[in-house]
């Protein structure tokens, strides 16, 4: 039984890989469709292997449910999933993300005005970024209550540092020549900031924003483990584990992965629009 299971899973893997290798090395590899298709095939291969292994090895659904069961649950629980999504992602993660981002920009610009502040803020910020969420989340829940406000605070703190560091680094990433040009125009601080340093910093800022998207989701969900109303993705995951409804847990994880990838994609798309001029954006 175990033997067949492993052999058939390997066969599926081989088939998926073969198709992808053919596609990737074909002439069509540069087309949009194929670029999308290849990761999809890869994902499908993994899902089929998962389904096969779980079914053939008779893994208890209490430990790992098969993808079909998760899909079914996903389809049946759409209203619940949507409510959880709203609570956790839209209220918790997005609010926190925006607060953290604005705060990081503000501090970056403040720090940027003086070398002294930059030297002071960056190491301390690094230390604060190392505070593990497992410790900070209960503190914020204690301070701000169980609803989404505390989640937003956790997210804001988590995303603050990566955005700050990248923005500060970006604001410094101008060449001497670019800065001197501004000086020959007798340009003051603000024109230099808006016309030179902010545009030049954009590739860095977006780097920070991209890292921050995945952190924001994790932060909002994990913080719900330490107290929440009876809605939210973290609440649902934890409660469903307690009820052994692992299919529901995975349905929420799917929502998280989709939301995370979509947010990441969105930021990357905006990045492409804003930093179209950067060498990394043209082929």
């Amino acid at each position, binding site marked *: 039984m175990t033997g067949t299971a492993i052999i058939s899973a390997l066969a599926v893997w081989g088939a998926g890989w073969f198709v992808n290798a053919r596609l990737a090395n074909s002439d069509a590899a540069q087309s949009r469709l194929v670029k999308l298709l290849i990761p999809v095939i890869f994902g499908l291969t993994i899902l089929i292997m998962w389904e096969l292994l779980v079914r053939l090895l008779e893994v208890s659904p209490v430990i790992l449910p098969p993808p079909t069961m998760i899909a079914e649950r996903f389809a049946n629980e759409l209203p619940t999933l949507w409510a959880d999504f709203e609570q956790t992602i839209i209220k918790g993660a997005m609010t926190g993300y925006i607060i953290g981002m604005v705060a990081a920009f503000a501090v970056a610009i403040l720090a940027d005005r003086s070398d002294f502040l930059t030297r002071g803020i960056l190491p301390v910020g690094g230390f604060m970024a190392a505070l593990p969420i497992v410790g900070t989340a209960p503190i914020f829940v204690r301070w701000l209550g169980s609803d989404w406000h505390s989640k937003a605070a956790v997210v804001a703190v988590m995303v603050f540092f990566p955005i700050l560091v990248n923005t500060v680094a970006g604001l410094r990433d101008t*060449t001497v*020549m*670019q800065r*001197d*040009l*501004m*000086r*020959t*125009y*007798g*340009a003051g601080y603000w*024109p230099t900031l808006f*016309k*030179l340093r902010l*545009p*030049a910093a*954009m590739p860095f800022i977006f780097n920070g924003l991209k890292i921050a998207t995945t952190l924001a989701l994790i932060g909002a969900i994990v913080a719900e483990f330490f107290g929440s109303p009876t809605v939210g993705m973290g609440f649902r995951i934890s409660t469903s584990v307690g009820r052994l409804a692992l299919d529901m847990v995975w349905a929420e994880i799917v929502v998280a992965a989709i939301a995370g990838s979509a947010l990441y994609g969105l930021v990357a798309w905006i990045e492409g629009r804003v*930093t179209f*001029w*950067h*060498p990394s954006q*043209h082929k």
Partner: protein
Amino acid sequence: MAVILANSLNLTFQTNDGPVHALKDVNLEINKGDFVSFIGPSGCGKTTFLRCIAGLETPTGGDISVNGMTPDEARMARAYGYVFQAAGLYPWRTIGGNIKLPLEIMGFSKAEQNERVGRVLELVDLAGFEKKFPWQLSGGMQQRASIARALAFDADILLMDEPFGALDEIVRDHLNEQLLQLWARTEKTIGFVTHSIPEAVYLSTKIVVMSPRPGRITDVIDSPLPKERPLDIRDSAEFIAVAHRVRDGLRAGHVDV
């Protein structure tokens, strides 16, 4: 009338390996309407001197005045157009946007901005490229755009640090001719750094030969060439004589190749 007057100027950089004497006892007088070339081996302080004039670097000794002011005051009064060795266009702005940059900062009106952009683009033969981004243009075109940018706000003094270093010879010849025409037309005072002897001789009314370690002026040559200079003046005996004098001056300062 002296536009730029340097009086035993000194500039020492403090580096990890000890002080570097980038300029030592430099005396120079540049008059209104002069075209002055600076030539000399790498590290002799050409760029540093140009930057002192522009108020981008603060001398550690001696003094320098521009239009009777300090260089810093002159910078704030927007007395200079500066062209850097590389084009240094901002990649997120179109060619037109790049040329508008100084105009925006200096508070020109929108209409005036557009009018000037059109005019200087014409001047450097880039009409029609206003909406392109820098990376969509060849190196030579970018360099011309950067010259246009420096011309846009009509400063009296134009400082150019090896503006044609990256270009091929033919394009360079062409730009040299155009630069001369522009200078003749506008009567600007031009400070021009180059590595090329023929270029220096062809363009200048005054050639300043420099030498490194410490950076100093070893020779100042007033050109006997007429103001009107067709390209083939470069085959004339006068031209070759001046070029020889420059080369000798350079070789004297070049002991360590």
